[in-house]
Every structure is written in C-alpha cells, then in structure tokens.
C-alpha cells in the first residue's frame, strides 16, 4: 500500500473504530489490512479471566475442587502447570480462596513471563518495576520461598499493593526496595536472573481497557521507548556474566519491543537472545515496518489478541556471555 493510500485507509478505519489514526496507520504498515481488521475485531472481544494457583499455599487439584463447589471452572493453560483459564460467576477477587492467597488473578501472558524467566530455588532474582506483585509472587513460588527475590518499584502507593500481595501469598523470601531501577547497577547484589517487565504504553491492553484506543500519542510511545531503553540498559549492566534476563512489555509496539532489544544487542555484544523452550504465542518481528533488525529477534515471542485470544504482550529472553 502506498503511503498516501495507507494514510487514507488508516483515517477511515480509525474513524469507524474509534482509534487514533496514527495507531491504525502503524498496524496497517505492520500487518496489512486483513490482519489489522482481525486485530481490531479481537480487541472488542472479552479476554478470558485466568488465575495462577499459588503452590506456596495450596496444590492445583485441591483449589480446583474448592472452586468447583463455587461454580468456578478452571481449564489448564497448556504451557503453564500453575496457570488456568477461569470462569467465575462473580468477581474473581472476592472469593475466600483469593483472600487466603490460594490463587492470583493474573493474565496468561504475565504468568508466562515468569515461567520464561525460569527462576530456581536458592537463586537471587531481581524483579524490576515489580508492583503490584503478580510476577514477584510467582517468582517466589517457583523458587519455593528460598533464595532471594529483590522486588523494586519506585511508586509508594504501588509498593503498598506489592507488599499486600506478598503477604497474602505467603511469600517469605522477598525484599522490597523503593528506588529508581535505572540505578540498578548501584544495588550491590549480584543476581542470577533479572526480570524487567517494563512500564510501557500498554498498547497491548486495548481488549481490557478500550480507553487506550485514544489515550496514547506517538510522543507517549517515544517517551516509553526511551525509558524502556534506559531500564534495559541498567538491567543489562547489573547482570553478571552467565546471567539470564527477561524483558517484557504489555505493548504491541515494535518501537517498545524489538527496536529496544535490537539497540541493546548493538551496544552489548556479550548479550544474546535465547530460544524460549515453551510453546506459546508467535515469533517476534525481525523486520517490523520493513526495518531490518537482528535476525535472532524471531526467538522472542508475542501474544496478540487476534491470534492468541489474550492481551498483547512481548517476551524476550536474553543471556549474558
């Protein structure tokens, strides 16, 4: 599609669907018209609720039995032992089992991020931008409450919810630090793994929050990309040789995902993208908008509403030589 034609098409589609034109323009350039329409339609569908069983407090079968009595149906997520699609009659957060910390209401892509990180008992793991604690509590669970999870966030209010979730889920191996994660290299801990689920534009969350169709400008995406680059740079600098890290966002924008990782690979030749040994999502883009990026970018993964029935997400696993 020629540029002018693309702009005109984007304008028409944006008007018809309530998006900002620049967004549709990018989707058309990235996916073409057919897939863009599929994406827009999928964003109008409701995302199925999902929960993570907290094995620090209960096993999956026992929870399943308890919730079944309360008319809640759980169906396993294929690649996640602890993850379930769930159908609740009422609010998933209001049940007794939730207050008791037996499960965490969490999107499947978010659970997948921690599974990709693959933390082991006894390790030291840093969780950057950790609040409200879905991934921190998941990391602690996979580490069986041993070793150390260092959960960092900057926002005082959000840290309260992080602490609350840590307590509810029975996590005893976490240290919560308040501070600017861009100064991660001054932390004084040598981690085995770092998880950076970066603050982002949230462009992947349109199915959950339709206001995002109009709330983010291209300038916002650029602002987020700059911050993501700085955070990833700090995380890479704090990662020791042989360490593993996962970079993820709930944005579908290549500008916040593949472009950021590509820059890091340029600046840090000792970093490499590694394959994710789980079957989910679809490969990341090595040529978004026709821009040639590192070809190992196809080892990254994306969740997309129109292909996977989830919110949009990007997940990249990296190792330092």
């Amino acid at each position, binding site marked *: 599609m020629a540029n002018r034609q693309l702009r005109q098409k984007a304008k028409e589609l944006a008007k018809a669907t309530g998006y900002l034109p620049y967004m549709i323009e990018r989707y058309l350039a990235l996916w073409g018209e057919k897939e863009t329409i599929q994406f827009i339609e999928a964003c109008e569908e409701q995302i199925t609720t999902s929960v993570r069983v907290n094995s620090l407090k209960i096993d999956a079968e026992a929870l399943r039995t308890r919730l079944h009595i309360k008319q809640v149906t759980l169906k396993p997520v294929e690649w996640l032992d602890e993850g379930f699609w769930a159908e609740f009659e009422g609010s998933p*957060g*209001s049940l*007794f089992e*939730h*207050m*008791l*910390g037996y499960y965490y209401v969490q999107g499947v892509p978010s659970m997948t991020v921690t599974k990709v990180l693959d933390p082991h008992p006894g390790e030291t793991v840093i969780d950057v931008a950790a609040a409200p604690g879905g991934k921190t509590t998941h990391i602690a669970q996979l580490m069986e409450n041993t070793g*150390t999870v260092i959960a*960092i966030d900057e926002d005082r209010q959000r*840290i*309260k*919810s992080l*602490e*609350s*979730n*840590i*307590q*509810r889920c*029975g996590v*005893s*191996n*976490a*240290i*919560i*630090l*308040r*501070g*600017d994660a861009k*100064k991660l290299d*001054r*932390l*004084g*801990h040598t981690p085995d793994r770092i998880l950076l689920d970066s603050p982002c534009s949230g462009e992947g969350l349109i199915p959950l929050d339709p206001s995002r169709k109009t709330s983010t400008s291209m300038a916002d995406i650029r602002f987020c990309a700059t911050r993501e680059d700085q955070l990833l740079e700090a995380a890479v600098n704090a990662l020791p040789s042989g360490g593993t890290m996962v970079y993820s966002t709930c944005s579908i924008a290549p500008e916040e995902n593949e472009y950021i990782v590509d820059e890091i690979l340029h600046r840090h030749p000792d970093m490499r993208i590694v394959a994710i040994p789980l079957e989910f999502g679809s490969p990341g883009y090595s040529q978004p908008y026709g821009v040639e990026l590192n070809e190992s970018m196809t080892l990254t993964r994306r969740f997309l509403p129109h292909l996977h029935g989830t919110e949009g997400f990007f997940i990249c696993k990296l190792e330092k030589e």
Partner: protein
Amino acid sequence: MKPELVDPVEWKELTDQFDNEFGYGVSKALLGDRAPVTISRGDTKSFYLVPRDWVGSLEEERTDFEVYSLGIRMGDLKEGKFRLSLQILDALAELTDKLLVVSQQGAEAFTYSRSIIKESVIKLDSHLKRGQRVIVLNKDGEVLGLAALSVDGNRLKRLASDRLVGKNLVDIGAYLRGA
C-alpha cells in the same frame, strides 16, 4: 530507614510479652533459624524475620534504594503496643492455643471487618480471658485474622446469641480493601 538487627534487650522485652500472651516458647519457635530485623518509620517500628544470610548485606548503606520491607513481617510496635501482621498469623496459629473457631457465616462477616458474636463461635477454650488476642480460624482451620476477646471463655455459654465475643483487630479482607 535502614533495616537493623533488633537490639537484644528490646527483642527480649518483646518476646517476653509475646510468650506471655501466646504461650511459652512461641516467639522462639516463630523465629526459627531467622534473624529479627527492624525498620523505623516515624514513631513506628516494623519488625521482620529474615534468613540469617541476609543480615550482612542489609546493614550496608544504600543511598539509591530504600528497603521498604523484607522477609516475613511480624508486626509493628507503636506507642508500646505491638500490632501483629496478617502474614505472621499463619505461623502463629500452628504454635499457640489462643484460637477462636467460627462458623461459615461468622467467617464471612469477620472478613468484612465485623466482630464476632456468640452465635458464630464454634470453639473457644474456656481458660481464655477477656482482652486476650486470639487467632480467628474458620471450621477448616484457615486463618482469617486476629480478634480481642470481649468476654472470658468460661462465660461463653451464658451469653445471648447476639452478644459480642471477639472484637475484630485485623482480618484477611484487608487484602481486598487495601487497608
């Protein structure tokens, strides 16, 4: 607001009070192989139990990051009163007999911040005295929170069904209410 190892004299005072209330040796069992550390915030001191191998690195000076919490939160000391955290109650329930078991209906009301009335009580030891803090459990033995007895345990049978037995101090509904 740097975490510090709890001063031994202060720890002894605290654990003596604790054992007095919840049973001899309870605080030692609760501590296990962890170390007690504290963070001061204004007139409140928060107490945490942490793995011993954390202690060295915690006491290092950090200017860029503030330690907000760590390990298991035991509770907060303010104006001479020690407020137990929700997090410590699970472990405490395993070690003490200062327990109050409530019905399903009572459990639901309790987790909505309500106090406990006689008709909700399934089990309360008769030796417990008014003012005693008790861990509130449902009939499956799951910890719901902490209450202060409003009556002596041996007077329970004489109470009318709508009379107050335990005042709600903290309950797991706080996780949803954001308290």
